[in-house]
């Protein structure tokens, strides 16, 4: 049961018993068939019980699930013919933030996205999806290319946050993110952003300024990780569950704050339970939004994007 979350386990156990029974039954035995349907009803109940009332912390765990599909998985499942391009032309190439050219349906798009790793070797290359300044600068280079050639941009966000390290600070992590916010707000091409897992703070926003921002149902997006918030405000990183509740970080929360435009449904239990179906929903949503945005002139796009972010925030006046 490695790679599964604690609260998923009772359901997984039941499901594997059902599978066992099914492979054992020959379809003739009426008792086995009865038992099977009984267990399936039970599994459905359990599924509703577990996933019907997930806490925000449990959603966070699904968003970080080791089996959750990552950017490259979606590119493959969406049938995107992808040509990866490398390097920021300044310092290096960042494996945590990938980018390139995509043939997506009938469209030619520029794609950028965080990429996490599945094992130790991959995680060394991908740095757990935590990008350095060169990642943000590579993304900016590719986005400028998109603007130059009039191609829309699709951005996949999945990061615990921008990397907090010595080299990252030396090379201006803050400036790299700020520059992207600045430039992305004025790019004259459609930008669709999808939060597919973790939307970790400035590291997420650094490729997250778009005309449309979509979120997968069990992804999270927050100003700081629940652990970070807990250690600062609750003086104890172990109180992350409370911090997650307090910060309101799920797709539904963000839709209420009008920070995102649409929640893309995931199968019960999360994208990893049925990646293909998730990818189908995701692909449909992206295409639909791109089609709408392609109706707008560059000036309308840029004006709308500025208004979009100007409208965010809650305050009293007078």
């Amino acid at each position, binding site marked *: 049961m490695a790679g599964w979350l604690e609260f998923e386990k009772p359901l997984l156990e039941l499901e594997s018993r059902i599978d066992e029974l099914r492979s054992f039954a020959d379809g003739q035995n009426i008792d086995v068939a009865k038992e099977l349907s009984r267990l399936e009803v039970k599994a459905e109940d359990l599924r509703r019980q577990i996933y019907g009332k997930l806490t925000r912390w449990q959603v966070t765990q699904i968003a970080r699930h080791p089996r959750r599909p990552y950017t490259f998985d979606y590119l493959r499942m969406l049938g995107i013919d992808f040509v990866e391009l490398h390097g920021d032309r300044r310092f290096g190439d960042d494996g945590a933030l990938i980018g390139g050219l995509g043939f997506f349906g009938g469209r030619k798009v520029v794609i950028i996205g965080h990429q996490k790793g599945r094992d130790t070797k991959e995680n060394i290359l991908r740095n757990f999806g935590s990008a350095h300044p060169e990642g943000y600068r590579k993304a900016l280079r590719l986005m400028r290319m998109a603007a130059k050639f009039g191609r829309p941009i699709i951005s996949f966000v999945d990061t615990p946050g*921008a990397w*907090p*390290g*010595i080299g*990252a*600070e*030396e*090379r*201006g*992590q*803050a*400036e790299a*993110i*700020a*520059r992207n*916010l*600045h*430039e992305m*707000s*004025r790019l004259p091409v459609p930008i669709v952003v999808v939060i597919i897992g973790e939307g970790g*703070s*400035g590291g997420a*926003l*650094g490729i*997250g*300024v778009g005309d449309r921002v979509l979120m997968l149902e069990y992804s999270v*997006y*927050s*100003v*700081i990780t629940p652990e*970070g*918030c807990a250690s*600062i*405000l*609750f*003086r104890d990183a172990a109180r992350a569950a409370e911090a997650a509740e*307090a*910060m*309101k*970080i799920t797709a539904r*929360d*963000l839709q209420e*704050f009008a*920070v995102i435009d649409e929640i893309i449904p995931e199968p019960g239990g999360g994208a990893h339970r049925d990646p293909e179906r998730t990818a189908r929903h995701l692909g449909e949503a992206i295409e639909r939004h791109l089609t709408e945005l392609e109706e707008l002139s560059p000036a309308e796009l840029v004006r709308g*994007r*500025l208004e979009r*972010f*100007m409208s*965010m*925030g*809650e*305050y*009293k*006046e*007078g």
Partner: protein
Amino acid sequence: MDQVSWLKRRKPGIKDAKRREMPDGLWRKCEGCGEIIYHKELERNLWTCNKCGYHFRISADQYRDILTDQGSFVELLTALESKDPLGFVDSKSYAERISDAKKKTGRRSAVMTGSARVDGHLAMFAILDFRFLGGSMGSVMGEKIARLTRMAIEERIPLVTLSSSGGARMQEGILSLMQMAKTSAMLAKLHEERLPHIAIQVHPTTGGVTASFASLGDVIVAEPGALIGFAGPRVIQQTIKQDLPDGFQRSEFLLKHGMIDMIVHRKELKSALAKLLDFFSDDNRDSAEDALGQARRQGL
């Protein structure tokens, strides 16, 4: 640190006799070199240590007085105040933290915005106040800076920001993160309009403020010894489990790594700013009407 907390924190070992010679408010100890400095002298030196150059942390009002021509500052956008959109509670409620900060600082928010002159040059000013919840950026700061930037565009005058902040305001959740995009997007418009933004960074400037408007100056000026960075040193140390190099994330480190244009002592800050504003000023515009009059008529 204010006088009262300094007295509370003073190291034992200062002889009682000596302590009696230091009545409340007259003396302060330099946090850089330990020198005991007479308050009047400190004030004369704009709250910097004559001996070691240490820059004491000061309020937004003090920066206003240091940087702008006397009597020229007109505060704008004073009506904006924080809401509590999340109903956030940790050890204290956010609402309570806000009201405490207001009492402590006499301000309604962590940023003071207005128009002022610097050796005669008109500019829009956003001055952060670290005493107000660590100068953190929530919806009010984001909105005030974005609107001030828009006013700078409308009036065609330069923008000056002075930052000192712990970053985004966690108690406003995702809305505070979005203020980074909001301020940066409006600055991008300012940039397109070919108007200057001078960004001044003082101790400490970190997190979401550094990763947005504070790093987007045409010219970036820092005070000496200021901590400036994306992640805080403690977070970095906990993540990489290594010692951090000497002087890491200080102004001098940033200058060496090409992240800021210059380090300017607080006593020279106003003249440096005036020179920059002079360079970027449009000579035809100098006769333009004072921004304030126009802003008032537009009801901003």
